[in-house]
């Protein structure tokens, strides 16, 4: 459509519509920027702090005057290397194992809940809800006593097992919601079309279920990665201490000097995986967190 065929009124109307659209667009960008600043500001703040030297920490400014990577050197190749890298390794290993176990067990459990009729189904769901609401602090003392008597104190399994109590309920609820939305009739349809049950399951159901399982894994990983209470209570050496607990072990050049810089650098490093996962899988995570259909 070219302009010269329009009456002046029509042209004016179209210009106004275009301007209105542009204004909405500008408005949305403003809102987006406000939200982004709100969400990213503390991360930016600790990022800036991580590049300050000990002398600059009290300069009262957001940015360092002379950015220095000395804090990163301290934790990656310097004195705190052993402390931080072993904690990072523990955190990664323990969180991934706890996530995998939780997702496998929760997949079986959620499949049963979504597809089968069995007595006690309601109990399984209620119990997992109770578990997810449980105050973790109430568990640490008895677990500490039990763990040390059976040799699980300060070991990977000693953290993986309690992490399951954090990750399983969420995984079960999220997956049950996902599985209830899968059109299971397709499986029967495929079998009618001549596929074996296994083929039908693999070709039809697995592709439908996989995104849900994957999303659940990311959410479960976040939860295990976030743990602090179990980390400080059930470990005592580099053998199993995860990163959030290890941050309390950093020190400055002497025991009295604040380890602000080293903690900030370590904080940034453990935030990188979170930011990467969020950037790559934003759609899946939002879908997972909003999946449990809310009906009133």
């Amino acid at each position, binding site marked *: 459509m070219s302009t010269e065929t329009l009456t002046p009124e029509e042209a004016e109307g179209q210009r106004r519509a275009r301007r209105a659209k542009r204004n909405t667009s500008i408005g949305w960008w403003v809102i987006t920027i406000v939200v982004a600043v709100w969400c990213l500001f503390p991360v930016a703040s600790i990022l800036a702090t991580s590049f300050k030297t*000990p002398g600059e920490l009290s300069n009262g400014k957001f940015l360092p005057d002379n950015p220095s990577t000395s804090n990163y050197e301290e934790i990656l190749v310097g004195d705190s290397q052993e402390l931080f890298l072993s904690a990072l390794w523990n955190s990664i290993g323990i969180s991934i194992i706890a996530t995998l176990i939780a997702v496998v067990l929760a997949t079986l459990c959620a499949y049963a809940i979504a597809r089968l009729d069995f007595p006690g189904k309601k109990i399984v769901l209620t119990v997992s809800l109770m578990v997810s609401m449980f105050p973790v602090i109430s568990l640490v003392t008895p677990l500490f006593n039990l763990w040390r008597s059976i*040799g699980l104190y*300060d*070991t990977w399994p000693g953290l993986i097992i309690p992490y399951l109590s954090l990750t399983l309920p969420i995984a079960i609820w999220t997956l049950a919601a996902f599985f209830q939305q899968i059109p299971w009739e397709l499986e029967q349809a495929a079998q009618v079309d001549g596929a074996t049950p296994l083929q039908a399951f693999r070709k039809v159901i697995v592709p439908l279920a996989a995104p849900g399982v994957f999303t659940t894994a990311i959410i479960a990983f976040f939860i295990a990665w976030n743990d602090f209470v179990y980390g400080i209570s059930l470990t*005592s050496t580099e053998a199993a201490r995860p990163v959030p607990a290890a941050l309390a072990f950093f*020190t400055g*050049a*002497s025991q*009295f*000097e604040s380890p602000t810089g080293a903690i900030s650098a370590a904080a940034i490093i453990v935030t990188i995986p979170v930011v990467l996962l969020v950037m790559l899988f934003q759609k899946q995570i939002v879908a997972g967190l909003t999946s449990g259909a809310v009906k009133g």
Partner: protein
Amino acid sequence: MMASAALLLAGCGPAEDTPVLTWYTNPDDGGQAAIAQKCSDAAGGAYRIETSILPNDAASQREQLTRRLAAGDTSMDIMSLDPPFIPELAEPGFLAVPPSEVAEATTRDTLEGALAGATWRDTLVTVPFWANTQLLWYRKSVVEEAGLDMDGPVTWDQMIQVARDQDKELGVQGARAEAMTVWLNALIESGGGQIIENPEAPADEVEIGLDSDAGRKAAEIISTIGTEGLGGPGLATQQENEAMLLFQGDSGSFMVNWPFVWPATNASAEDGAVPADLPEDIGWSVYPRTSGDTEPAPPLGGINLGVGAASEQQDLAWDAVECIVSPENQTEYFVTNGNPPSSASAFDDPSVRERFPMAETIRESLELAAPRPQTPYYNEVSTAIQQRYTPPASVDPETTPAETGQFIQEVLRGESLL
């Protein structure tokens, strides 16, 4: 425990025949790890020391160690212990008593204050490794203007007066942390009193000495600094590091602090974070007195080495301890990590004087130093004091000492939460 031992062993590498001793160290600048390496090499295959790091603050270190010791953990071969917490571990028999020849060899020239912190019920239960003490640091320019003679006795009242007159701030530790008990104890001891009158008594018979003349005078000093804002705006959260920053600033006048401030201030001056000529304006002397006619009682800190009673390698552990605390190692540790020796002869090395011009004052201070109350309930006593004496502005010399004393007794009898 089995599993954790297996994990540890798995990480050990090829020298599987050498017995491995685990040394739980407080965080430092790598000095303890270096000494561990040195002693392992010197042992010629008799043992190898592996270090395992503890948390940053004293209370959390105690938490970790006590829980493992109570569990009868056999890996607790050597532990770096903060002296105030030793009675709590010694009383239930968690610590092995050093053989007499080790005790004799390691305490030959140990400074008085450090030795007092290593014993419990007249038995040596740990071996002093290094000793710490606070000095009075001052800005020469401020003192000059006030016309104070820093070679003579200095009292808290004098310092308060100078800060008032010149509109300056005092570097003290007013945070709700162990540093608060350190301060209060030094004030009371110098005034001739004691926080606990009968430290070896069972929990329900402990008598608290806060509500004495010395105790009320101590509370008055804390209260004055707090209410008049003489400790700076951050006093209520101010620990050692923050006090140093305050002292380095324009309003700095006096500060009580550990010797780490000297290398730290020099490093900042080199970095350009503080004026390059600041170190030249800094002087030091022995800790201030609570009143003019009493002796100073500087705070005592440091680290002692203990051996777990459940350790299966106690003989080797004591051999290693003897190596670790040798005067040469103490000297080197002072020079590299800034932690003063507990042995008098370790101060004589020229390298010490070069790096710490105030070494002689530190030695003098360690002879005068008074330990914090030695009781198995130290954690309760100290936490209660921290809760009631912070923020310093809320301290009332008339009521706080008496109320705190009563509160501590209630906590020890199990009638109050802490």
